[in-house]
Structure formats: structure tokens, C-alpha cells
């Protein structure tokens, strides 16, 4: 097997005493669709931040696509981040750029031709059904549209691994399902998907692998896709 993500005895301690994560061991195979669930402060966001190298573990090792993130040099971080698709908890769109510009600018970092940039940017918008709003600025989009734009930006790189931190956090259930269906179709295309969420309805109905965190530790890990009644969320 060739795992996309490996956590080996990973702990993260803030300010020398507060545990963000405690001795985490887990593997996510390529092509998997995994939900990370847990209360606020359970360690979900910390886990994701370790994956896109916004944080370093206090101990243990994190591997993404066989790359040990501890050994990653500062100058290689941007290149590494461009191999991932990340949808941030607070969307994080460039406020003074239109929808299409938000995507194009990221693609231009790859050194693609103007034609390729345009093609990929419009294709990404089309995938999230946002083509009609390509010239809109983020503040002119609804919460759901902003979230879809963030997904479009994340997938425009054609990443093999997509990480989404609470992508349905502040949006209604109907829009949440729309977004989940986008993730599902991306997963069917072979993309490994890792999502943190608070939403028990989505988790139980999606019927995917669920890793539950509690106080920075893995409370449960349903390796087989199992419907889950999620009382604790």
C-alpha cells in the first residue's frame, strides 16, 4: 500500500503545556475519503495545519505523499503546498480579487501559460458551478458561493490530496450537500479527501471513513465505511 498521509506518534504541544494532539497514529490511503470529527478544541484544525506545514509537530513524524514534513526546508514549503489543495476554515479568499483572479493568481505561481491558466481557472469554476460569478468579488458572493470558490481554487492545482477544514461550517444544509457532492465527485476522480466537520448529518449520510478526535487523541477510527450516529457532536 502507498499511503497519502501518515502520522507516526505525533504530538503537538502549545506553550509547552497545552496538548493540541497526543500520540496520534493514523494512515490515510490514496483515494480515501475521510472525515475528521470532534468537539471544538479536539485537535481537528491542528491535525490539518500539520498536513499543510503551517505547524510542526512537537514530536513524531508526519508524511504526506511519502514526504517527511519535518525534513522539509523552508524554501521548499511553497512548492509542497502547491501539491495540496486546501480549503481553509475561514475560506481565505483574496478580498480585492475577483473569483477568476483568485484562482488564476494561484495558477500563475506554477508558471503555466496564460491559456492554460485561463482554461484551468474556468474549468475549476465550472466544476463548482460558479462560472456565472467569475467576475464577482468575494464580498459579492454568498457564504456557500465563497466556499465553492475556495474549493475551486484548491482543486485548480489538480492536487492528489484535498484538505478541507470545516467546509460546511457557516452554510445551510442544502448548500452543504452541494459542496459534499463536489467532494464526492472529486473523490471518484481519484482525489484523496480529508475533511473536518461538525455536521453529524453529513457524516452519517456520507457513509465514509470517520476518525473521531477527543482531547487531541484518536477516540475512534471506523476504517470500514460505516453509517454513524454521531451523538457527541
Amino acid at each position, binding site marked *: 500500500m502507498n499511503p497519502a498521509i501518515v502520522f507516526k506518534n505525533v504530538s503537538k504541544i502549545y*506553550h509547552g503545556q497545552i496538548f493540541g494532539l497526543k500520540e496520534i497514529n493514523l494512515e490515510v490511503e490514496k483515494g480515501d475519503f475521510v472525515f475528521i470529527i470532534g468537539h471544538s478544541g479536539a485537535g481537528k484544525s491542528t491535525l490539518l495545519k500539520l498536513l499543510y506545514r503551517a505547524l510542526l509537530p512537537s514530536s513524531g513524524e508526519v508524511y504526506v505523499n511519502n514526504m517527511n514534513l519535518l525534513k522539509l526546508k523552508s524554501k521548499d514549503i511553497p512548492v509542497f503546498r502547491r501539491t495540496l489543495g486546501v480549503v481553509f476554515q475561514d475560506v481565505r479568499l*483574496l478580498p480585492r480579487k475577483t473569483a477568476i483572479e483568485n484562482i488564476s493568481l494561484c495558477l500563475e505561481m506554477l508558471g503555466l501559460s496564460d491559456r492554460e491558466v485561463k482554461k484551468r481557472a474556468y474549468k475549476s469554476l465550472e466544476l463548482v458551478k460558479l462560472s456565472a460569478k467569475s467576475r464577482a468579488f468575494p464580498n459579492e458572493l454568498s457564504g456557500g458561493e465563497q466556499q465553492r470558490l475556495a474549493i475551486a481554487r484548491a482543486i485548480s492545482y489538480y492536487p492528489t490530496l484535498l484538505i478541507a477544514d470545516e467546509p460546511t461550517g457557516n452554510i445551510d444544509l442544502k448548500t452543504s450537500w452541494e459542496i459534499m457532492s463536489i467532494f464526492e465527485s472529486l473523490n471518484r476522480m481519484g482525489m484523496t479527501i480529508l475533511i473536518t466537520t461538525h455536521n453529524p448529518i453529513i457524516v452519517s449520510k456520507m457513509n465514509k471513513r470517520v476518525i473521531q478526535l477527543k482531547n487531541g487523541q484518536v477516540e475512534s477510527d471506523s476504517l470500514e465505511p460505516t453509517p454513524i450516529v454521531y451523538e457527541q457532536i
Partner: protein
Amino acid sequence: MSRFRIYLREAIVSLSRGGGMAIASTISISFTMIIFGLILMCFLSLFQASTKIGDQVELLVFLKDNVSAQDINGLVGTISNMEGVASVEYVSKHDAWEKFKKYFQNKINISDIKNPLPDTIKVRTKSPDYIAGLSKVISQFPQVDETRYPQQLLNTLNIMVQKITLIGSLLLIGFALASLVVISSTIKVSVLARREELEILELVGAEPNFIRMPYILEGSFIGFFSSLLAIFFFIFLSIFLSFTVVNINPPWSFFWPLNTSLWILMCFIIVFTGTFIGFLGSFISLRNVGKFSVTKDF
């Protein structure tokens, strides 16, 4: 699209969408450039005045009696070709005496006096610095009796120019550094206002230069436009002063109190300094960008 074109496009788009912040930065920096320009203008005016006095100074070459016209012509030709000589004028003893008589006609009785004046060559130099050297060389010629120039005045002028240059340069460098602090603070405010943008770019994998360069170019543009505003101020100031103080009519008044070349030099210095300080100010404000991607620990 090449990286530089992307940086340039981003800087221009950012300026055009920057709205109030870009305008406020430009105006506040232009005030700094106006003060810088005023110091520069005073320095250049003093420099111009002292150079003008120096340029008026002549080297007088008194010739011996009975030097033939052919020798005089030869000497004038030789002096004209010497390094640093701007112009040479031969005044015969006859012409000099006629001029003298005309000047003192009604003041003293000189009708019985025999012409005591020698044939003279007046030498103007390209710079007062050449006078002493030329005097030394020319006085060695056999046709020359003696050479004279206002050595004391030249020494005083020399010291004055040196002092003006030193004090002016120190003032300008000091003020340029102060401007750098003001400008980098102004730019820092606008960078802080866009801190979120910088963080987003880092998170989506932009390299430090990709993040910094548009902002650095934007800072340079703001410095450039601020300098242009300052230059417009000086154009209006010069026109105003020429009408009210010196009463000269345009277009000659346009560059007052400086001459055309010094005006162009002043504009060039203001534009260069403004643009460079804008560039440096942004560079300093953004020096930490890209470093926090290493890892933020809480």
C-alpha cells in the same frame, strides 16, 4: 506571462483597487518629498550662486612691452587650447587706455599722462579650480610679464562651496533617512491592512518573492507619484515666486531660482529619491514576509 509582468500587473491592479489607502499614502509621502525638495532647492541655489561668482572670476595675463602682434596671436591661440579655458579675450594697451580715459573722463585729468597700461589677455575658465594652475603655466611664457587673479576670493569661494556641499549633503542624507522612516511606516500601515492577503498567498504556496514583489513595485510607484506631486508643487512655487518676488515673466521664470540644468537635476533627484525610498520602504516593511511560513508556534 513572465514573472515580472505578473508583478507589474498585480502592482497596478492593487494601486487601482487600493482606493483611499493608495491616495492617502501618496499624499502623505508627497509632503515628505516637498520638504526634501525644499532643502535640495536651497542647497542647489546656494551652490549655483557660489559657482556663478566663481565663473565671473578672470585670469588677467599682462604682457611685456613690445610683444609683436604675431606673438600675441600665437599666445592667444596657445592659451585658448589649454585645458579648462572657456574663453580668451585680447585687450590691447590702446583699447584699455581708451576705456580707462572714458571711464575717468570727468573725474581726473589724465590728458598729460602717457599710457601706462600693458597689453592684456583676459582668460575665463570653465571652473575656478583651473585658475591657479593656468596662472602658474601662463606666467612661464616669455611674452608674459605677470598674471593676476583674485586668489583670496577664490579661496573663500572654494571653502564656501565645500561647506555648502558638505552641509547640504549631510542635511539631504539625514532627511532622506528620516523620509525613509516616514515612508516605510506609511507603507507598513498599508501592508498591515493587507496582512490577510499576504498570509493567504503564503498558505496557497506563493514563494516569498511572488508575494513581496508586487507590493515592492507598488511602494515604488507610490514613491514615484509622490515625487511627481512634489515636482508639481515646485513648478507652481517657482511661477508664484517669479511673479511676486523677482517679477520676471514666464517662460524664463519657470525655473527660478535655479537654472534649467539644475532644475532638471533637482527633479531627477526628487524622482529618484522618492522612487528609491518607496522601493526601500516597502522592502523593509516586507522583509519578514515568507519567513512565517517556516512554522508559527503558538
